Structures are given as C-alpha cells and as structure tokens.
C-alpha cells in the first residue's frame, strides 16, 4: 500500500534547475535513504513527495494513484521535520492528537490512539508537558508520535537527527530502525550523513546536484560504486583516490582504494609511505600517510596499531579491492 513512484519528476525555481528529472521506484515497506551533500536537492525531493512544493514536471504516484496535484494533507503521508515543528503552545498530548482532531475523530478514539503512540514511544509520563520542557530526544519522539497516529502509508523524515548530540543520534537511529521493523511501513529518510544512510537503509539513493548518482543497497554501494562521487561519499574514512602513474599501470585514469583495504608492514608492499598523523580510536587506528610520487593516503588498521609520526612503512593494497575509474569518473569493470 505504501509504494511511491517518481516518474520523470523535475523541479525548477525560476531559472535554477534544482532537480533535472528523476525516476525512482520505492517499494512498499522499504526504508529508503536520500543521501548527498548539502544543497544536492534531497530535501526538495522529499518536499515534492510530501506536496509542500509543486513539481515543475513529471508525476508522483503514491500507492499506484497519481497524487501530483493532491494537497499534502490528502496524500496520507506523515512528515518529521528537522526542527521537529512541534506546536509550542500545545502539550505533548495536544501535539500528538492534533492530526486526529483535524481529521474529525471522536474524542475517545483520539484518546486511545494517543495513548497507543505514547506507549510505543515511551512518552506516557510526558503527555501533559509542553515541548519546551522536553529534551531533544523526547521532542524528536513527539514529532514521530504525531506522524504515527495518522497511520500514514509512508513516513518522511527530513534530517531528523541533525539537532541531536552524537550519543543521542546513535540511540535515535536505532529507535527509528526498530520502529520501521515494528510498523513495516515505507519510510523515506533524508540525511547528509552517510553513516545514517548505511546503518538504516534498505535502499540508498545517492544524490548530487539534483541528479541520482546511484541507487542500491548499502553494501552494493560500498562494494560497487558506479562513479567517483559515490565512491567518495560512501564509506568512512573516505576512499583514497590515486591518479597518475599508479592508476595508469592498472589501465585507469583514477584508482580508488578504501582505507580498510590497505595492509601495512615494515617488510613488503607496493608503495613506501611516511606516517604523518596517527589517530588512535582504540577499536581502529587511522593512519595518514604520504607516499612519494603518489600522494596522501589514509589507512585504517583494525585494533591498536603502533606507529609513530615520521616512521616509514610498506603499504600493500588488498588484491581485488581496487576500484578503477575512467577519465569521466565512471567505474570500469
């Protein structure tokens, strides 16, 4: 019931083309993440689906029905905003009940649904508080509660975790994923954080300057990035790109190798590099190396890796894990 199809959808503001033309299929129950750098049009795309912006061309089908011209309220979608957009003068109860009240439901039904949503989101003790008396994570949950009670065909999240601190972000990420398991509804989630995309998504849509660069499951994107942009965007730390002699030897304009696919030793390896900075995370060690004639390189070693700045190490790329790209930045198979 919650399938969403974008058919040749485009958006222009005056002369500025924000989204050229996008085709996208989202299956029922899927968790789709739109990811890309800021200004890539991912939020605009979400707002087009929500109906908060009018499309300049193309069609939007929700549950098989053409909803291109339908006002937002009747698309049966619920949205969680970046600022949460809670109504400050209403209590938590009032906020969650608002969409039901607008739908004209009887007060006992409203009461029951609000209680259900509050139980799912652990908000029962806070129902009579005002939003300003809540912490960031609780406000986030109220915003989600307001979305849940409407029983929408799909949920839209617009960078919902960007206002939370790092620890809370990880916790809420998990909560949203669990909510998806529980509700089994279509969710579209916009973020600029590739970690959120990788951890939560069934399907990632990588956007750049309004264009879809690649669509696929997190591991597909990780293993087989279609082009330099996707290769550089997915994965942390970023993939190392090398051009010049090293790439030409492998018949490519640029080669990419992920930091975790490099082996370091004192004895053998393809390149010789000097350690610049070593970042010790405990579980991992990130080494920033400089290789003469090749350029800077980041290596990720599992566990504690003893390396001092200035030390010289041999670097061996793992066989079969080198990505090759042509001069237009497209992947070579």
């Amino acid at each position, binding site marked *: 019931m919650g399938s969403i199809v974008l058919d040749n959808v485009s958006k222009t503001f005056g002369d500025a083309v924000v989204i050229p033309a996008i085709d996208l299929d989202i299956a029922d129950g899927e968790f789709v993440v739109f990811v890309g750098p800021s200004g890539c049009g991912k939020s605009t795309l979400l707002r087009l689906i*929500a109906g908060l912006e009018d499309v300049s061309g193309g069609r939007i089908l929700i549950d098989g029905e053409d909803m291109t011209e339908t*006002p937002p*309220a009747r698309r049966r979608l619920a*949205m969680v905003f970046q600022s949460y*957009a809670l109504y400050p*003068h*209403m209590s938590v109860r009032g906020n969650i009940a*608002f*969409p039901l009240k607008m739908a004209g439901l009887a007060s006992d039904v409203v009461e029951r649904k609000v209680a259900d949503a509050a139980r799912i989101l652990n908000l029962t003790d806070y129902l009579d508080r005002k939003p300003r008396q809540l912490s960031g994570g609780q406000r986030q949950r109220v915003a989600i509660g*307001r979305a849940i009670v409407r029983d929408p065909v799909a949920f839209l999240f617009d960078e919902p975790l960007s206002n939370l601190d790092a620890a809370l972000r990880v916790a809420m990420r998990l909560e949203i994923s669990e909510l998806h398991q529980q509700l089994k509804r279509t969710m579209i989630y916009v973020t600029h954080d590739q970690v959120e995309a990788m951890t939560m998504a069934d399907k990632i849509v990588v956007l750049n300057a309004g264009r879809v660069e690649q669509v696929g499951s997190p591991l597909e994107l990780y293993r087989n990035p279609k082009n330099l942009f996707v290769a550089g965007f997915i994965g942390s730390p970023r993939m190392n790109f090398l051009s010049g002699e090293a790439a030409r030897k492998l018949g490519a304009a640029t080669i990419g190798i992920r930091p975790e696919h490099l082996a370091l030793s004192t004895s053998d390896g393809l390149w010789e590099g000097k350690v610049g900075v070593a970042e010790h995370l405990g579980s991992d060690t990130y080494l920033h190396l400089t290789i003469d004639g090749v350029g800077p390189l980041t290596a990720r070693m599992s566990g504690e890796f003893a390396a001092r700045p200035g030390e010289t190490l041999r670097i061996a790329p793992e066989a079969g894990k080198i990505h090759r790209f042509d001069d237009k930045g497209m992947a070579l198979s």
Partner: protein
Amino acid sequence: MATLHTRASARLMMAPAVILLLAWMIVPLGMTLYFSLLRYNLLMPGMESFTGLGNYVYFLTDPAFGTALANTLLLVGGVLAITVIGGTGLALLLDQPFFGRGIVRLLVIAPFFVMPTVSALVWKTMLMHPVNGLFAWIARSLGFAPVDWFADLPLLSIILIVAWQWLPFATLILLTALQSLDEEQKEAAEMDGAGAVSRFVYIVLPHLARAMTVVVLIETIFLLSVFAEILVTTNGGPGVQTTTITYLVYMQALLQFDVGGASAGGIVAVVLANIVAIFLIRLIGKNLDR
C-alpha cells in the same frame, strides 16, 4: 560576573537615574494628593482651605462622572477591539507576498506619525463633516442621507478616529510576530490536515497571543488618556456624550478653575487606571511569562 562588588557599583551608578525618575513621579503625585484635599479655586486665590474628602465626594457624585466612566471604558474597549482584530487582519494581508509590498507597508504605518490633533481635524472636516465631508458625499451619491457623525454618533466617531491612529501600531507588532512564526510549523500543520482556517485558529492565533497582549497593554496605557481628539472634535459633547474621565478632569481644572476638584479627579483616574491594569494583567498577563 555578577559579584557582590559589581552589583554594588551597578546600584550606585543606576542610583541617579532611579532617584530622578522616582522624584519625577512622587513629587507631582504628592502635590496632586495634597491639592485634592484642599478647597482651591483659581478664581479665588489665597482662599485655600482644607476640606478633607469633600472634593472626592463632589467629583464622584457629579452626574457626569458615571457617564464619563462608561465613555472611557467604551472608548478603550472599542479601540482595542478594532485595532487588535483589524491589526491581525492587516498583518495577515501584509505578510502575503505581493507587488509593492514595501511601499504598502510604509503607507500602513503612516497614520501613526500624524499627531492626534491634526488627524482629528482631518477626520472632522474632510471625512466626517455632514456637508463637505467625504463620507457625506459618498452617502449622497449613493442616495442616502448623510450621517452627522459628531451629532448622532459622537462616541463612535471618536472611537473610529483613535482606532485609525492606533491600527498601524497593532499591525506593526502583529506583523513582526507573524513573521517570527516558524515556517515548518505551518507546513507540519498542513501535513496534519489542517485547512487555512484551522491553521489560523490552532497555530497562528496562539503564536500571536503574546504580541496581542503587548498591544493591549501598551494601547490601554495611552487610550486611558485620550484627550486631543475629544477637544478638537466634540469638546466632550453633545452634552456629556463624549466626556471621558480625562476630559472631565480637564473641565474641572481649566474650565471651572477648580484645582482641588480636578486633583481629586486626577487621583480617581490614577486609581481607575490601576484597577484596569490589575484586571488586564490578571486576564492576559500569563501570556507574557514564557
């Protein structure tokens, strides 16, 4: 930051201003209180004598007093109603994007810069005059008998003039409040299925409550002392139909030269203003503690 030392020096440095302001208020108030207890008429200089509360009894039992009190409350209430409702409407209109918005906004603010005597005169002679006025001309060209505003509807006329002057103030405050409303909140309400009217009632109006409180409180302070508009147009008449407490005090002091009676009236006006203030703060002041 706020150590004991800095606080003491801050107090010391604020003292001159506070003392000056306090004296500025206490001395006239004290003198008015003193005069209100005297039999003091400017036509009989040197004959002042103590009468106790005689002036108060005289002022409060004046047959014009009840009417003046009712007129004052009607004037304040009427102008508040027109400016708050009209101001909200105008603010909503001016918040919409349209061609020439900047100029229109400037024009809307303009009446606030016209001094009360001038605007009252303009309304009296150019708009509301039963023979030469614009309203009379409109009524005649539509085939109606022109309204003699100041003879038939004197208090309403004054309310209209004063409301015209204060509408820009209300509009300005409410417009800025409207612009501070989070766009995402309106969008969230739209997604939640709220139509334009529901969005206004449930989202915009509660957001404006605080600004409206400010408008009501500030306007009340100034509206209780409206005087020039009455003096220029109706002189409190016909009869006492447009006499307010302020105007009654003026009549005592400067038409009957009764300083004692006017002082007593002044004190009554101060007490009344405080009653109104307490009433307002109780009623709407809770909007301010956020």
